[in-house]
């Protein structure tokens, strides 16, 4: 297939996934910010939202007085200066989709086009709390439907595999960032004796990736910080965990290599990152530093993205 088309498919999926993650981050920040400070702890939820969205530097330049509900929502949802705002993500995803109309199914196109049309009808200036919540929900639904449509309607060929690669590279990146912003809360030495201040923080992490219920099914325990980390990094049962993302990436890259009859750096990088995740255990990760582990993972993930671009998309 055309390299440009593969590139468009890859980024279209990254932007859709990113829009969903941003919507989740805001959704959870709203929830936490609504708690009395005795429950939420001293942390500024709006600041961590900005940090998770990986746009702290640009944000600080724009709002030197710090993060508030209003300016964070504004910035993440529809700031014209933020190229990764939810609005910009949906715009970009839709225009990428438009450029590769022939490579995606009509179901996928219609979902994005509909989401985009709907978004254009919203006045974000002075948007009410309920309208905003509804919008964030619609963004998550759009991404879910898009993912489902891709899974159910796309031919299993390189077009599908490149589309999936974008989804999982982005998902892995977003998950690692989310964990890294909250990493200090996940350290075992902070172990509380039942229902401490940070309880709501941990459960909010799980909630932000729709994993609160499944956590209980897997561990049958109260929410414990090191188990949260274990669940979201190392457990293959959890579909958004770093290891799940990498097993998928490996799989799609292998299928591409098999179809094209050739392997390259992308396959090697994906394999070695997957192996590292498979051989790791949480104790060891905590010992050598959770933050360091996550930073290294984010770098490796970026390297894989660059290798895919170099090998196939340019």
């Amino acid at each position, binding site marked *: *297939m*055309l390299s440009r088309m593969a590139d468009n498919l890859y980024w279209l999926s990254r932007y859709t996934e990113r829009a969903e993650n941003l919507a989740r981050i805001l959704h959870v920040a709203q929830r936490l910010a609504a708690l009395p400070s005795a429950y939420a702890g001293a942390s500024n939820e709006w600041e961590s939202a900005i940090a998770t969205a990986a746009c702290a530097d640009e944000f600080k330049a724009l709002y030197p007085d710090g993060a508030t509900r209003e300016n964070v929502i504004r910035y993440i949802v529809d700031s014209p200066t933020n190229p990764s705002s939810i609005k910009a993500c949906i715009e970009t995803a839709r225009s990428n989709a*438009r450029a590769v*109309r*022939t490579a995606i199914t009509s179901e996928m*196109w*219609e979902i994005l*086009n509909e989401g985009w049309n709907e978004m254009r009808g919203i006045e974000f200036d002075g948007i009410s709390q309920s309208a905003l919540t509804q919008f964030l929900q619609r963004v998550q639904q759009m991404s879910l439907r898009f993912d489902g449509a891709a899974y159910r309607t796309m031919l299993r060929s390189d077009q599908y595999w490149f589309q999936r690669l974008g989804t999982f590279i982005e998902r892995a990146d977003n998950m690692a960032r989310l964990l890294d912003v909250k990493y200090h809360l996940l350290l075992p030495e902070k172990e509380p004796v039942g229902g401490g201040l940070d309880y709501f923080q941990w459960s909010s992490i799980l909630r932000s990736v729709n994993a609160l219920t499944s956590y209980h099914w897997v561990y049958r325990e109260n929410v414990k910080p090191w188990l949260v980390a274990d669940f979201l990094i190392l457990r293959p049962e959890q579909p958004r965990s770093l290891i799940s993302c990498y097993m998928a990436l490996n799989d799609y890259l292998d299928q591409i290599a098999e179809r094209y009859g050739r392997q390259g750096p992308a396959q090697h990088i994906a394999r070695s990152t997957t192996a590292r995740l498979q051989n790791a255990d949480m104790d060891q990760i905590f010992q050598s530093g959770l933050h360091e582990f996550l930073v290294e993972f984010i770098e490796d993930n970026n390297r894989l993205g660059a290798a895919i671009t170099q090998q196939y998309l340019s």
Partner: protein
Amino acid sequence: MSAAAAAAFFDEMNIPDGGVRAGYEAISEWLKQAPRELLVNRKLEAEHFFRRIGITFNVYGDNQGTERLIPFDIVPRVLTAAEWQKLVRGLEQRVKALNAFIADSYNGREIVAAGIVPEELILQNPAFQPEMTDFMPPGGIHVHIAGIDIVRVDADTFYVLEDNARTPSGVSYMLENREAMMRLMPELFGSLRVAPVDNYPDALLETLRSVAPRSASRDPTVVLLTPGPFNSAYYEHSFLADKMGVELVEGRDLLVRDNVVYMRTTEGPRRVDVIYRRIDDEYLDPIAFNPGSMLGVPGLMSAYKAGNVTISNAIGTGVGDDKAIYSYMPEIIEFYLGEKPLLSNVPTHRCREPEALRYVLSRLHELVVKEVNGSGGYGMLVGPHATKAERDTFAAKLKAHPDDFIAQPTLALSTVPCFVDSGLAPRHVDLRPYVLCGADGVRCVPGGLTRVALKEGSLVVNSSQGGGTKDTWVVET
């Protein structure tokens, strides 16, 4: 417009003294029975359908909302199978002659030697490409896809209004209009035998493959070259590429190495044999033409002339479809084919001829004056609808550059009922059938795109000027 004035036009459905013309019976009956709310609903459904699939066009110079829908009218336009048969023979003849003329224009110019077409009309035509001189494209065909604009004035008379031999657009509307109508009006399709059009993409692909260069493999690779998503016809480009199952490429996806064209793919460079381009000549190759073009492919022209790739339509076909050459088409047909033209031309005054110019200036209030190289309804004067001031301004332009204009009588274009805000009302229409010309013969799917001037009394059907479209049905009677 008064009722008396409206009656002066030939309505394709309603006979003035009552009754309905052949082919329209079931439609007329259905329209009579359908309550207004039903029609309103169907119209809304149609709009929703077009919006959802994203069939939009961009209007140049329109800043607000670059993507707009072309208004669609739910009342179909009907041609009987007999009428269509007659049209097709005329269309085939016309496109054959057009191809012969363009080939001759670049090779020998016998028609000039015979004293039929003045040489300067060819050589000084802005669309003439000297690069194409003494070059014959694969299969000897220049125009593979033509859109011939036809108007009707009475039961028996069809005129060719314009030939489009560059990159005629609109065929996606023909296909999507049918798709929409089959969803909206299943009851009508049940009672009428409407000739299908949905084999157009297959016919197009066959045509393109038939003109692949000799160096191509037995399974030639065809691509569709688009300027990109910001082009007004981008929807159509992606639609056609999808239906044909070929890659939709932009200039940056192609590269030329040793006079062979390749596309950049995830598996490395892959050879391209036929390029169905929807980019104008001057942007195709920054080395051969406009050096500032970001849309083209450096070296494409030299690969073309080396015979390693087919460009469709060929470069320089505009020499055959401007309005100055148009007036010579009857002679052109006779000269190359030795046949009488089956389709008439609109009587045309060439303002470059002093006598014609004097006549045109004295009759501006009743004529339509068109720019020789204009298209899309831009830069034309409809005399009877223009103000005195507009006519005076135009007269000055005409005197300054008479070569740039032709004039024609204001035609009493036929009307077809449309469902507008005030209910069913007659509106003027034209027809653009698409004629495909390959090494293996001429193909023409039954029907074409009917364009309709939705403004009451208006004769301008172009979408850029507020026109809409209708589905066109060729029915057995």
